[in-house]
């Protein structure tokens, strides 16, 4: 398992891990608090942005993307990138398709959606 860069000194790594952990806990509490603010659609935006920052800290520092070579970074980006492409393509399909109830769904479950204007 050869990494071209020499491993940083243990004390420095341990301190970075400690700071990252503290930042993760603070961000978790910020996420928790934001759920009680009346931000409308920005509630979910705040939650997801904070989650993305936390995930980036874990990936960058704990999973060592910071020290990784281009091959591993490429794999990581492709994994997330393909997911975004698939979400986009699937979203186009779902947003333009009229809803029909499945046999297992109670009729009232579809009411709020059916009340909304259907896509032409």
């Amino acid at each position: 398992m050869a990494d071209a860069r020499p491993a940083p000194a243990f004390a420095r790594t341990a301190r970075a891990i400690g700071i990252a952990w503290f930042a993760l806990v603070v961000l978790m509490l910020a996420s928790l608090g934001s759920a009680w603010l009346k931000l409308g659609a920005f509630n979910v935006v705040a939650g997801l942005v904070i989650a993305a920052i936390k995930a980036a800290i874990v990936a960058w520092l704990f999973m060592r993307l910071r020290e990784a070579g281009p091959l591993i970074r490429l794999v990581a980006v492709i994994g997330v990138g393909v997911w975004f492409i698939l979400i986009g393509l699937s979203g186009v399909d779902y947003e333009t398709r009229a809803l029909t109830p499945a046999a297992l769904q109670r009729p009232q479950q579809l009411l709020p959606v059916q009340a909304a204007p259907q896509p032409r």
Partner: protein
Amino acid sequence: MSSVALPEPHAEPGTGKLGMWVFLASEVLFFGGLFLAYLYGRTHWPLGWAAASRHTDVVLGTVNTALLLTSSAVIALAVACEEDERQRRWTARLLALTAALGSAFLAIKGVEYHAEWREHLFPGPSFALDTPGAQEFFALYFVMTGLHGVHMIVGIAALAILAHGRRHERDWARADHIEIAALYWHFVDIVWIFLYPLLYLVQRHG
């Protein structure tokens, strides 16, 4: 044109580490389908999603999030210890601590599941909430947290075995295997980082 060997800034990663990253990329798509289902439900039944989310236990969810974040930091420290000869004696203990934190997470999740079952929040004929979409929320809640829990069980088993092997200085419990296991554990943590606001914090006010 003469060919000149360019200096390589990074050595090629080991096959095990690269293999784990490729596996994790496929896992993004594995969980990704469920996140798409969530997105669909939340945009089509926002009221049902908000009402159902308020019935999840936010205290236990937050404690579990803190446990997982801490476990990620602990296993990152275990990897760092393994790389430093003077700190290597801590590796097995830190791996065992990570597995213990994961087990505590699962135990708390079990308490949550038990309470939700008693409150008729498990989808079915006797489901407690009438708001349209609430039942779909809880169906996804159980599938997503259940799938995450299965990943946790695999991770805990791997870490417990590695901790045992490292303690008895087995050849297979070496640094690169510990790092690969840590990558998996961090990924499971990242999945939970997104599940936490999406399942527990949809709309706590109002």
